[in-house]
């Protein structure tokens, strides 16, 4: 087994940084459309986004727990089934897929909030960029060999923490400001 190399980690971080910057640049230079997009069976796009982000957070919680189990940090389930890793991958992929229409509306219809006095929207804009950057880095690390063993859990933790902060600055804000369940 080869020794850990920082090169794989740097590649992942460079890619993640590039993705985060690209998302932020698009959100800044794109003229926000200010329109609703997808809402499915919800009354409007914001309700759809609030609930979809909540679902993504629940999937991320499962991601966190299943990752901890695979790394042997939690004891349950005691006998890990052979398909456990695939369920972990499936839940993560599903969470990412569900985040796409949410991000589309954020970027296309609302854009990046540059005014720091609008703290919630400013923080949310930064967190959104960071989330996709960290996600890209995490996916790269999963598929790369030679990165330090601590890199994947650290970057995965950043993805999860960022998602929690995104949920706090949007879905929780929506439910407490507009109402609950506001479907």
């Amino acid at each position, binding site marked *: 087994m080869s020794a850990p190399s920082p090169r794989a980690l740097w590649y992942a971080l460079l890619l993640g940084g590039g993705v985060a910057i690209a998302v932020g640049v698009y959100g800044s230079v794109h003229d926000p459309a*200010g329109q609703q997009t997808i809402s499915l069976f919800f009354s409007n796009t914001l309700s759809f986004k609030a609930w979809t982000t909540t679902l993504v957070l629940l999937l991320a919680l499962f991601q966190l727990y299943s990752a901890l189990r695979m790394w042997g940090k939690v004891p349950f389930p005691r006998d890990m089934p052979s398909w456990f890793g695939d369920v972990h991958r499936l839940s993560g992929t599903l969470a990412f897929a569900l985040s796409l229409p949410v991000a589309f509306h954020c970027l296309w219809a*609302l854009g990046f909030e540059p005014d720091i*006095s609008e703290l919630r929207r400013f923080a949310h804009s930064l967190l959104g960029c960071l989330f996709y950057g960290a996600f890209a880095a995490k996916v790269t690390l999963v598929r790369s060999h030679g990165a330090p063993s601590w890199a994947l859990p650290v970057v995965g933790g950043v993805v999860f923490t960022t998602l929690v902060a995104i949920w706090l600055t949007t879905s929780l804000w929506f439910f407490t400001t507009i109402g609950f369940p506001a479907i």
Partner: protein
Amino acid sequence: MFERFVNVFQVLVAIAAGATVVLLLTVSPTVAEVESPDTALGSDLFQANCAGCHGAGGEGGIGPALAGGLARFGSTEEVVVFVSTGVPGRMPGFETRLGPDEINAVVEFVWADLAGR
């Protein structure tokens, strides 16, 4: 079998991510949404439904000032949701009093003419 399913699903989601990027770069706002708002209707509806609390010129009263305000909202869409649903104990929801077009008109009026956004 299950692993194969997950692999195929991941490929499909990767394609969906690429399609999302393409849509972000190519989709333009629909013409109907960028037409100029019916400010006369919006003004009339504002005076009839909102001015009692927010002032005839949106200067505030029982409710907060709207003129030069609305900083908490990022788009008219957010204001439409807010006006439609209201806030329990603070502001009534108007979705049962006004139609969607009327709410859009009054929000456009407040957004563009009073708040100057």
